[in-house]
């Protein structure tokens, strides 16, 4: 069966905190899913600041994947998300295929996990710090490994990097390897002024993400697409849905307005009775 999120608007990875911060503003109401910040097997302290800077119509973002690690997430964050009844997608990255398999096995059976989203190419880490999945066949190996480790029914999303030349090849490869949907696009590879790697996200990326959605939908009509890239309000959500996306993630907009996703949901529901 083809994947469709419960409702069309989701919170993008890394932009919703642990979920609790958004809930303070009723920011999770009516969402089709919450994607966690990227988790790794072991805790990561993250980079010292600055980590997030303004760029015109965007953010240059590089936390160094600060996260509490799998054990702490399962003990302290997941139960709360499960209690909210919101479909939770856990964003993952790992250093080896074995680590990916272990993460998939433990998360796939954890109560409250709807699916996982693979952060295949974190733009804010130097190449080599995690499993190098820039080549389509490597991305497919990760997807295949995690697919095999997940129980049936656990959704597997693959978030693809912004590499226009390899986009279709990568999308086809991860689909064949077992991804239920692709998330387009990841933040663009960028840099802080001091040369540290970072990702550029935000409304500046919207036209690029839209192009990627159109191209993948045209070439691979059987592959569901979730759009991620610069959507800030209901108008953007509508544009991505019209382009054929089954869901739209809202990310950077939440840093500017924690109610952005919930407002888009409310506006969408008002118009589609």
């Amino acid at each position, binding site marked *: 069966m083809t994947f469709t999120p419960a409702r069309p608007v989701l919170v993008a990875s890394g932009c919703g905190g642990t979920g609790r911060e958004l809930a303070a503003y009723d920011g999770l109401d009516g969402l089709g899913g919450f994607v966690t910040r990227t988790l790794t097997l072991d805790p990561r302290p993250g980079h010292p600041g600055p980590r*997030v*800077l303004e760029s015109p119509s965007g953010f240059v973002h590089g936390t160094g994947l600060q996260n509490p690690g799998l054990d702490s997430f399962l003990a302290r964050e997941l139960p709360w998300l499960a209690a909210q009844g919101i479909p939770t997608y856990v964003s993952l990255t790992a250093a080896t295929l074995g680590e990916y398999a272990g993460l998939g096995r433990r998360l796939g059976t954890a109560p409250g996990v709807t699916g996982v989203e693979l952060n295949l190419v974190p733009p804010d880490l130097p190449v080599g710090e995690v499993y190098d999945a820039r080549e389509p066949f490597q991305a497919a190996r990760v997807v295949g490994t995690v697919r095999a480790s997940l129980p049936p029914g656990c959704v597997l999303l693959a978030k693809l990097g912004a590499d226009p030349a390899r986009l279709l090849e990568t999308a086809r490869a991860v689909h064949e390897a077992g991804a239920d949907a692709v998330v387009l696009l990841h933040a663009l590879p960028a840099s802080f002024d001091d040369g540290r790697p970072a990702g550029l996200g935000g409304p500046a990326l919207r036209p690029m993400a839209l192009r990627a959605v159109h191209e993948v939908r045209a070439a691979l009509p059987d592959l569901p697409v979730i759009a991620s890239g610069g959507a800030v309000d209901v108008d953007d959500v509508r544009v991505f849905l019209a382009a054929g996306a089954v869901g739209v993630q809202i990310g*950077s*907009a939440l*840093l*500017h307005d*924690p109610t952005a996703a919930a407002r888009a949901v409310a506006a969408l529901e008002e118009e589609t009775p």
Partner: protein
Amino acid sequence: MTDARGPVHVDGEVLSVKRVGALHHVTVVAPGIAERFRPGTFVAVSLPDDDARLARRSFWIHGVRPTGSHGPTLEIVVTAKSAWPRRLVALGQGARLVLTGPLGRPFALPREPVTCLLVGEGYAAAPLFPLAERLRERGCVVAMLLAAPDEEHLLGTLAARRSARSVTVVTADGSVGVRGAVADVVADQVSRAGADVVYAAGGRPALHAVAAAAEQHGAWSQTAVETWQPCATGLCHGCPVPVVGEDGVGRLVRACTEGPVFRGDRVQWVAWEAP
């Protein structure tokens, strides 16, 4: 789910902008925030229709008036030293702002009536004035140390005299009070006041000096830190502060959510000040 004590995200309206020396006092009608305010919390502000500049700007709440003729208002203190705050202070009465607050953990208040020293540097002294009022309500003895580069950037010496038993002023250029910085005088101030608790808000070197002086004299310190907070709501993890937890383990936490007020002995000042 929005609870009576949590932050709210609201449309506000500029009521007045008053210039005092080099500082601007901006009063905003902000329903929901004034009622929930506790000293040490802050407010995140964005200018409407600003599509290119997406990060929020954080300001200490200097005071609130939950019931006024214009509705609940709050006051922030702004130094217009870069483009964004210059746009803010140029707004006229009635201009719309988007505000989120009150955000962060406030100053912890003592249960007993104790002796407190409040140390503020420049505009960052803003949250200490409502704090002084709360401490006095609890029967605490309050002394204040206010510092600034010069008289123009000094906040509220007059108000300080109303709520504090003693007020000491230091300026870097000696234009008013004693010539010097917080670090030069704070140890002497802590011992002279016989302070049990030192509350401080200002730059990192000043807060480091406060934490060290408090520890040396066996006093508690509560330091309100300031750093770049891109979202100010805990979502982006963009405001890391190195601290030592109760378990003795060092970690990076968010200034906006786990702070902005930290126990001074918990912050790893040397690591944080390193370039």
